[in-house]
């Protein structure tokens, strides 16, 4: 039996940037969608919240991924113009070919209906598009003819083959082939063209862009057939830029995603609006991408939320919240049913651990990176952030009510937070002082070193502050005053400290990869005979298991290590590449055998580590 297994995975959201389209892919059966964040490609099932396939072989930020119509290969592009074609049938994702198509970001990729040719377009210097054979990489024509960045590309799914593309020079171009050659360009748009797509049989294609118009063309020669018009607007389809369009699988309808915060469903034959789905009114509700698979209609909001839409009723069925920036801190509710995660942009998401259902704590509590988060047995949520506030969001509704947040200004930047289980005492380690929050009152104790992390023992007796001076400063806490009882020296900056649940041990980790447990009763002497240095880079986080026997540490080296106090001399359990290509920013034990981890890759993973 293996030492550990991955139980569940809450995947990242797609990366978004305001005013930039998100191009989604899907599997041919339509039961999974594909998007990119960081250097990874995510293949996420639409009916399962706790699973995803993550491809992490790109060495630069990924931009777009599309699976071939055969379903056997996926082509993914990155910001430096590399297209990787990889096997989708096995979890190892064997690389078929990698092709540098041009020098800039790949913005869209299309496969032909025979799964033989790939067209990639984007921000090249010498050219903006390239079409090649997927197995050899041989060029299959050339896609020059537009004078600016090409944003979107699609193959006609039937013979005679065509390629269509939309560009920042406001044109839609059509190429004939193979081998593909420029045939014509259409100047019907007056702003950037963001999306061009063929219908299922290639009889028509549609284009849309920054001018809010949606235009229908004949699929073979590109003759303009019609312009879609919303009767409530003058001559256009949307009152904002349209970033994406997607045909329904049967070709009878088109869905468009727009910066006017709506998704519209159009009847392709009458060119009239069938449904207008209003997602919201905030800037974050702008719609940047859309895909209509055989199983669902999915759109992406500007903050990365994944909206599952019902095209018949014109409603939002389900929204997946989460993060698309690095997760910096984790905490669970006392009953162990809810998980709170905080990210580098100040957002907090709550998760139902059993189902993977997510929600966003709204309004946002903080405006920038959250460095510490902790819940109490009353359900209140304590957070500290780089905006120099210690905030308490009280329990309310199904989680916390952030409209009633209590704010406490800190006079220097907080880097760590420890809160007692009952919420009576909270200690924040700040750059130049230690802040103690007790009975609604904040006391700041100045320190003559720079702190980095903090821990509070369960009996509220001791406070351990990790310092950038490579020392752990242990204080006795009485009321809101601290008296230093012990200073423990490490060889490098302390990165995390934690007391065991029974208050018997204190553990400290540092930048020189060491994990050292200390005995509280024995005047904080080292409690393990063995030197625990199995990490290969800075240790970022540490957590004690509820039974006080095991320790989990997450590190910059992408791995998680589980250490056993009773078997200190044995080799620990190493989960290599737990968060591939990403630092493990937070680890937390849910029970004796379940560990949850979160990383810079915005993923949350649940590990089963049997005793």
């Amino acid at each position, binding site marked *: 039996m293996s030492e550990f297994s991955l139980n569940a995975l809450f995947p990242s959201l797609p990366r978004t940037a305001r005013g930039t389209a998100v191009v989604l892919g899907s599997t041919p059966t339509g039961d999974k969608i594909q998007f990119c964040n960081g250097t990874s490609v995510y293949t996420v099932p639409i009916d399962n919240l706790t699973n995803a396939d993550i491809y992490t072989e790109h060495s630069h930020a990924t931009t777009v991924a599309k699976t071939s119509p055969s379903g056997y290969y996926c082509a993914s592009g990155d910001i430096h113009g590399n297209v990787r074609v990889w096997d989708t049938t096995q979890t190892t994702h064997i690389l078929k070919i990698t092709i540098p198509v041009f020098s800039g970001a790949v913005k869209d990729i299309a496969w032909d209906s025979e799964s033989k040719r790939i067209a990639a377009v984007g921000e090249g*210097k*010498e*050219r*903006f598009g390239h079409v090649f054979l997927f197995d050899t990489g041989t060029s299959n024509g050339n896609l020059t*003819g*537009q004078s600016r960045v090409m944003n979107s590309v699609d193959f006609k799914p039937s013979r005679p083959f065509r390629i269509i593309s939309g560009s920042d020079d406001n044109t839609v171009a059509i190429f004939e082939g193979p081998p593909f050659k*420029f045939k*014509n*360009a259409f100047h019907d748009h007056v702003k950037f063209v963001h999306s061009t797509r063929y219908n299922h049989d290639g009889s028509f294609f549609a284009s849309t862009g920054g001018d809010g118009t949606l235009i229908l063309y004949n699929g073979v020669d590109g003759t303009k057939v019609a312009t879609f018009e919303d009767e409530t607007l003058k001559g256009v389809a949307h009152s904002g830029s349209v970033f994406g369009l997607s045909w329904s699988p049967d070709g009878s309808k088109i869905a468009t995603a727009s910066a006017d915060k709506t998704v519209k469903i159009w009847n392709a034959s009458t060119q009239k609006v069938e449904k207008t789905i209003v997602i919201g009114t905030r800037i974050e509700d702008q719609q940047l991408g859309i895909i209509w698979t055989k199983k669902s209609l999915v759109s992406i909001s500007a903050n990365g939320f994944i909206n599952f839409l019902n095209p018949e009723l014109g409603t939002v069925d389900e929204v997946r919240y989460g993060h698309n920036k690095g997760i910096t801190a984790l905490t669970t509710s006392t009953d162990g049913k809810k998980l709170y995660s905080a990210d580098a942009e100040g957002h907090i998401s709550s998760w139902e651990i059993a189902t993977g259902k997510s929600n966003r704590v709204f309004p946002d509590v903080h405006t920038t990176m959250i460095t510490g988060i902790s819940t109490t047995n009353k359900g209140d949520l304590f957070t500290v952030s780089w905006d120099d506030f210690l905030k308490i969001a009280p329990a309310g509704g199904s989680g916390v009510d952030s409209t009633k947040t209590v704010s406490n200004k800190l006079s220097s930047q907080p880097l760590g937070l420890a809160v007692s289980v009952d919420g009576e005492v909270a200690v924040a380690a700040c750059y130049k002082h230690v802040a103690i929050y007790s009975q609604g009152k904040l006391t700041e104790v100045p320190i003559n070193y720079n702190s980095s992390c903090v821990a509070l023992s369960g009996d509220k007796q001791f406070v351990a502050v990790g310092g950038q001076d490579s020392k752990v400063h242990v204080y006795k806490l009485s009321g809101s005053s601290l008296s230093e009882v012990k200073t423990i020296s490490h060889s490098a900056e302390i990165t995390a400290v934690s007391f065991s649940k029974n208050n018997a041990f204190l553990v400290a980790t540092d930048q020189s990869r060491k994990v050292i447990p200390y005995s509280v009763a024995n005047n904080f002497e080292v409690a393990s005979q063995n030197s625990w240095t199995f990490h290969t880079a800075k240790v970022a986080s540490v957590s004690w298991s509820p039974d006080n026997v095991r320790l989990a540490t997450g590190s910059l080296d992408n791995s998680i290590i589980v250490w056993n106090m009773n078997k200190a001399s044995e080799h620990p359990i190493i989960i290599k590449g737990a968060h591939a290509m990403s630092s493990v920013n937070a680890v937390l034990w849910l029970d004796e055998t379940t560990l949850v981890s979160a990383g810079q890759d915005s993923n949350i993973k649940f590990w089963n580590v049997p005793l």
Partner: protein
Amino acid sequence: MSTSGVSVHPDVPATFQKLSEGKKEFRYILFKIQEKDIVVEAAVTQEELGISGDEYEESSKSAFEKFVQDIKARTDNLTDCLYAVFDFKFTCSRVGAGTSKMDKIIFLQICPDGASIKKKMVYASSASAIKATLGTGRIMPFQVSDESELSHREFLNQLGAKYGDN
């Protein structure tokens, strides 16, 4: 990146294809800006030039002279702006390869000193658009501001320096 607001007419890449690919119907093409579009002013075939014989031998000298004459005629003796592409056939010597026949497309951005300042600015700021449309990898760009820069020897030297191995 062109920000002049001038766009490239779809005929431009289509005509250029007939110079760069397949049977290479055209020998040179002249483009101008008309209203808000870059359009084809003239496309001249090999037959229209009426030149036979080995062009590589003389490195397109006579064809190029006819090309320059045409430019002068159409720019009112170099007082107007123009873009031009010319299929330059020449020979150059390379170490280890001896002399080899080469075929390169040169792109001329002709903005003579005598043209109006406004025209020069519009042509200069729109040049990137047409170059991108033709495919920057397939052309060798040159800027021409007076007649001396239109000499055959000048181009031959520069092409030789780039593709030869002297």
